[in-house]
């Protein structure tokens, strides 16, 4: 059945078709659209007949046919796009939680469901750069203007403005026209004001201003200020336009909305002339013009320099400052400040000529920091402080830029972004404090600095903190405050006791904390010790505080005292060469990854887009095999509306199968996923993992060492951590936690698992495996092995003393962070009565190096207890210095010792190799040990909120000797 026949099936549609045939102009085009569209959209659809009606209406009233438009028709939970010939373009699912992108501040308009979704949405007219987007509602209004308005205004001009230049956010101007008209009549303003205003509307619209804004923000403002004097009024109206044209002239390009002028308008002129700007309010017009000329000339100079990163540096950093300065400063200061800012941008961009350097500039932290300052300088009295602060900030940044962003820069930016820098003095104080703390060589620099910035106000005070820090192992601001108030002789005693408690707390899980010099501080001291011991880059101070505040009684020691008796042993150290024979391939592969990641464009839609396209890919893939089912899924099931709980039967199955396919199958997908991960990590989209900050130094190391033979253990290891551990962690996080933030479709697919196929955790492992393969993660181990020197006979082998001891108190709830297993805050084992975390402590260095985790389970049909090992989680950076095999054998013996003590019949280990350890060398050792070992069936299936572990069959590592 062709389109016309279809049209005839619907009385209303056919009537409209006949009407279209009678149109004087564009009749053929309109009819073609109707006939063709009827082939793609059910003719019974009200949306389609509405569209026909409006289209005819538009053609009749405006005599324009929107040739370049795309029409968007809502059908159930999807939207179908047609072009102006009625041909099918594509269909999309309606996703309700996409973020909307702004218009002027954030570049091109994306089709967004948050725009008013009328049954027919003219906002999807696409004709050039954000031009010609008009909603049906506005268009209707413009075609049915009340007579009184028609008398004063030339409505045809207004309508043309909308049809040519409007974008979806433009509201209809009728109300504003009415208000202005009333004012013109009431004040008896001259008739030529109307023409001036209409000109302003046309000019403004060309530059992207809504007529409503022009009327409300410029025209009304000028009428009130200069309305009584026709010449001044005309001049003021002229000035607004002149400022835009000045830039136009400077750049010598047409203001067609696609040139750089559009950028200048957004970033400079709009803040300057916006109603809340003081720039055009407080000076005479000639003076304003003069000032603006200065700014515009400097603006042109800066932005026409051939530096690569000028615009990148300015966006979301300089422009925020511009808006802020315009709002709060007098015109003269505005000029000075903007020129200072432009000089700053010019200077920085002249020094940053590579992606590496741009990454090091840490732009996101600048934005955060500026937002913090804005928050804190709300009151007018603080405005001048803010100005001075920013001037100082610009200076210090320029200094750091000259020094090529040394390590202090990162620290400064952490403080800047954290809101610690509140006055210009804070910057001086920071620089002094950093100098002093460097001398201490402490690993807690950030925390010390933070306390210093918070407490110290003079040199004496600063020295006191330094004295405390250099002698006491526990650092906490509350303890420090109490300690500071003690008499001097008691201060020494307190530090001695604190240090002793620190060591004992780690070694003895049953210790009671009590320091007589610091009474009633037990809880704080314990928390402070924990913060010192848990130095995981994967866990922020805030997260630690949160976890400590949410402790539960389940963490109290509650297992056999046999487990809290330590087992001590020694492990040999490894000897490393100082330089590797790293292959050029290794270096080039890493360079490539880093380059690609650094060149990513920051796009807030990125994540959603990728997720959506993954789902689409999955659905289409599925559609190839089971087309009808796929269509069913796409059109009818709640899967695409996010109502996950309603998923049943085939829909659920299909959806999940898609997820499983998406996550497991395609090589291309794996490669894409790698890109996504890298970009997410490096662009800091992964929140709270501090990966960006962690990634920064090793990446720079690798970028700065292009020659052969320059890698050391210290540079390779952090890279390995980033690639392997953080990826693993990110993937787990992505699949479990972050997926909650995905669009509904993706969320559904990521969160569900179904019998017989992969669970999300397994999918996470599969993704990780793919990533590991494509990222050549093995290469890190090979490089490290190459560095591992052969032991010279006769040379004394150094060894470390290790203690293993079961512990279940506050410290031990952080067990998953002490090692590098990759699961972050995933499990709640600590709250289980049968869960046993065993600390691994390097007593030579007094480092909590990791945990061994175990459970008690029972075999089927037996009361004999099994000591079930579930994982050995140790710090890679620690084990790398030791003979891993030696460690594993000794740790295994220690575990047998524990099993014997608690009278367990068997020491077993779960068979899921992936979760045994985040450390590849330990995992390999366990794999070899487990191979071909006898199995035993257990009745245990342990369920956690996030994951079920099926322990129905476990491998036996040791068995109690039968009597």
């Amino acid at each position, binding site marked *: 059945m062709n389109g016309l026949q279809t049209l005839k099936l619907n009385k209303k549609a056919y009537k409209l078709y006949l009407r279209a045939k009678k149109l004087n102009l564009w009749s053929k085009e309109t009819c073609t659209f109707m006939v063709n569209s009827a082939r793609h959209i059910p003719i019974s659809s009200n949306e389609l007949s509405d569209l026909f009606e409006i289209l005819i209406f538009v053609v009749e009233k405006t005599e324009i046919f929107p040739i370049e438009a795309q029409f968007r028709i809502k059908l159930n939970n999807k939207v179908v796009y047609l072009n102006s010939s009625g041909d099918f373009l594509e269909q999309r699912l309606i996703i309700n939680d996409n973020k909307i992108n702004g218009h002027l501040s954030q570049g091109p308009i994306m089709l967004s469901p948050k725009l008013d979704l009328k049954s027919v949405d003219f906002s999807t007219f696409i004709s050039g750069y954000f031009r010609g987007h008009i909603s049906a509602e506005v268009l209707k209004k413009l075609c049915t203007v009340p007579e009184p308005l028609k008398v004063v205004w030339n409505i045809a001009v207004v309508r043309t403005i909308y049809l040519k230049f409007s974008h979806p956010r433009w509201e209809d101007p009728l109300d504003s026209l009415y208000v202005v008209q009333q004012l013109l009549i009431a004040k008896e303003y001259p008739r030529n004001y109307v023409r001036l205003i209409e000109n302003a509307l046309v000019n403004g619209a060309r530059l992207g201003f809504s007529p409503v804004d022009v009327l409300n923000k410029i025209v009304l403002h000028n009428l009130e200020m200069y309305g009584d004097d026709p010449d001044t009024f005309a001049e003021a109206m002229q000035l607004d336009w002149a400022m835009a044209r000045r830039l136009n002239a400077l750049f010598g390009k047409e203001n067609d909305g696609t040139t750089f002028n559009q950028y200048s308008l957004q970033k400079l002129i709009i803040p300057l002339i916006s109603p809340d700007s003081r720039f055009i309010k407080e000076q005479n017009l000639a003076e304003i013009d003069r000032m603006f000329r200065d700014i515009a000339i400097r603006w042109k100079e800066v932005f026409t320099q051939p530096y690569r990163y000028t615009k990148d540096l300015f966006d979301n950093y300089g422009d925020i400052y511009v808006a802020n300065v315009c709002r709060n400063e007098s015109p003269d200061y505005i000029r000075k400040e903007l020129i200072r800012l432009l000089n700053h941008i010019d200077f920085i961009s002249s020094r940053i000529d590579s992606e590496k350097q741009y990454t090091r500039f840490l732009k996101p932290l600048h934005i955060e920091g500026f937002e913090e300052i804005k928050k804190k300088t709300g009151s007018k009295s603080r405005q001048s402080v803010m100005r001075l602060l920013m001037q100082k900030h610009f200076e210090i940044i320029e200094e750091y830029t000259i020094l090529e962003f040394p390590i202090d820069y990162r620290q400064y930016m952490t403080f800047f972004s954290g809101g610690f820098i509140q006055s210009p003095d804070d910057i001086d104080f920071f620089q002094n404090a950093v100098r002093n703390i460097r001398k201490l060589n402490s690993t807690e620099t950030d925390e010390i600095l933070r306390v210093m910035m918070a407490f110290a106000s003079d040199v004496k005070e600063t020295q006191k903190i330094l004295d405390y820090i250099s002698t006491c192992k526990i650092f906490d601001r509350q303890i420090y405050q109490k300690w500071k108030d003690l008499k001097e002789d008691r201060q020494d005693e307190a530090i001695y006791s604190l240090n002793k408690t620190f060591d004992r707390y780690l070694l003895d899980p049953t210790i009671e904390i009590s320091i007589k010099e610091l009474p009633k501080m037990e809880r704080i001291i314990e928390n402070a010790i924990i913060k010192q011991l848990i130095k995981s880059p994967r866990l922020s101070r805030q997260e630690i505080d949160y976890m400590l505040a949410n402790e539960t009684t389940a963490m109290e020691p509650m297992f056999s005292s046999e487990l809290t008796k330590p087992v001590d042993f020694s492990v040999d150290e490894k000897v490393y060469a100082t330089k590797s024979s790293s292959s050029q391939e290794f270096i080039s592969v890493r360079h490539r990854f880093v380059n690609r990641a650094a060149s990513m464009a920051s796009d807030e839609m990125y994540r959603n887009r990728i997720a959506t396209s993954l789902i689409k890919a999955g659905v289409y893939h599925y559609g190839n095999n089971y087309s009808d089912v796929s269509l069913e899924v796409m059109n009818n099931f709640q899967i695409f509306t996010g109502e996950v709980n309603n998923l049943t039967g085939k829909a659920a199955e299909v959806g999940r199968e898609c997820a499983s396919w998406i996550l497991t199958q395609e090589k291309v997908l794996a490669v894409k996923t790698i890109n996504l991960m890298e970009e997410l990590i490096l662009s800091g989209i992964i929140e709270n993992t501090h990966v960006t900050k962690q990634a920064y130094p090793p990446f720079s190391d690798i970028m700065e060492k292009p020659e052969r033979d320059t890698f050391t253990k210290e540079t390779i290891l952090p890279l390995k951590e980033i690639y392997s551990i953080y990826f693993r962690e990110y993937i787990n996080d992505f699949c479990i936690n972050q997926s909650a933030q995905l669009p509904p479709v993706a969320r559904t697919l990521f969160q569900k698992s179904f019998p017989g196929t992969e669970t999300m955790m397994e999918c996470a492992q599969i993704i990780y495996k793919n990533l590991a393969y494509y990222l050549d993660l093995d290469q890190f181990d090979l490089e490290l092995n190459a560095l591992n020197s052969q032991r010279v006979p006769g040379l004394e082998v150094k060894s470390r003393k290790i203690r293993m001891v079961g512990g279940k108190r506050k410290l031990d709830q952080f067990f998953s962070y002490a090692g590098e297993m990759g699961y972050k805050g995933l499990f709640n084992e600590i709250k289980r009565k049968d869960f046993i975390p065993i600390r691994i402590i390097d007593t030579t260095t007094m480092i909590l190096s990791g945990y061994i985790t175990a459970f008690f389970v029972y075999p089927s049909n037996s009361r004999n207890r099994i000591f079930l090992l579930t994982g050995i989680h140790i710090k890679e950076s620690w084990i790398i210095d030791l003979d891993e*095999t030696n460690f594993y*054998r000794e740790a*295994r*013996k220690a575990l*047998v010792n524990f099993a014997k003590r608690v009278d367990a019949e068997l*020491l077993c280990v779960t068979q899921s190799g992936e979760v045994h350890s985040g450390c590849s060398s330990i995992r*390999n*050792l366990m*794999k*070899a*040990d487990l*191979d*071909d*070992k*006898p199995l035993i069936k257990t009745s245990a299936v342990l369920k956690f909120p996030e994951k079920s572990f099926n322990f129905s069959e476990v491998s*036996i*590592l*040791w*068995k*109690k*000797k*039968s009597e």
Partner: protein
Amino acid sequence: MNEQMREDLTQFCRFDCDRYEFLINWLNREEISHSVIPTGSARHILIRLDKIRPYLKRYHVKTLVAHYDRVDGTPGANDNSSAVMQLLYSIDKLKSLNFAHNIQIILTDKEELMPGESLVNQGAYQLANLFREKNINNCIFFVFDMCGIGDTLISGRAGLQLLKNKYDNEIRFKKMYDHMRHFSDSLADLFLSFRDGEYFNLNSLFSDDLGFLLNRYPALQISVLPYSDALAVKNNLFRIDDEKWNEVQGKGVLSAEYREFLKPLLPQSWNSNHKSSDSIERLTDSAFDVIDEFILELAQYQIPYGEVNS
């Protein structure tokens, strides 16, 4: 390894040593009763230890086997003089046990096959054949081979693997496979409780055990390796493609292809086997301690006869 043992080993590994003579003299010197079982040109030495405490009939007789022959022109310290000495020196300790241990020892001949010889020429095969003819059913065999270097006990399960492959192809091997599997499983407890359960199963090793297995006697090879070597072998084995492994095994364990395939997989400490460098200097005391301890452990470990019946 005590001085006496070292001295004996040195003599035993001399190029001009007549090993059969040496063993007979040694046993006579120590006044240990023994008998010689000839099969073809091979002379096997049987040492029964049931005079002080008779073997318990309801349990299997655990027969510890070590081949005493060597490749001509090599010292054969690790292959297999060390195991022979370990067994000989365990006799005294076994005798002094105050319980019935059901252990007997056989030192076999003709383990090392000459080019062109097949498995039926192997001494152990012929011996097992003889046992079958004599209707001896209650024996299980622990074949000690390559026990001189390392600290980690290795259970060689090539026989089991071989039977499994055969059973996969031909149903008639099912009974034999089940039999061996049962035996292997029942021994697991022994290995798991020995030295905190630190041992490895390696499926690529075999020795005299094959001869016994093919005559339907449960047999297991025992070896010793340094832990790192055992790990390396395991990791090498993980990398082998299953199909390739089956294909090579299909050609027969004595085939040149199989031996060639196995070569790079073998542990580093066995590189000197069948070479003049297989000297006693390379042996380690820890290996002797492991075997000494294991034999005593084995003495306590009884396998009921009814449960594993051929």
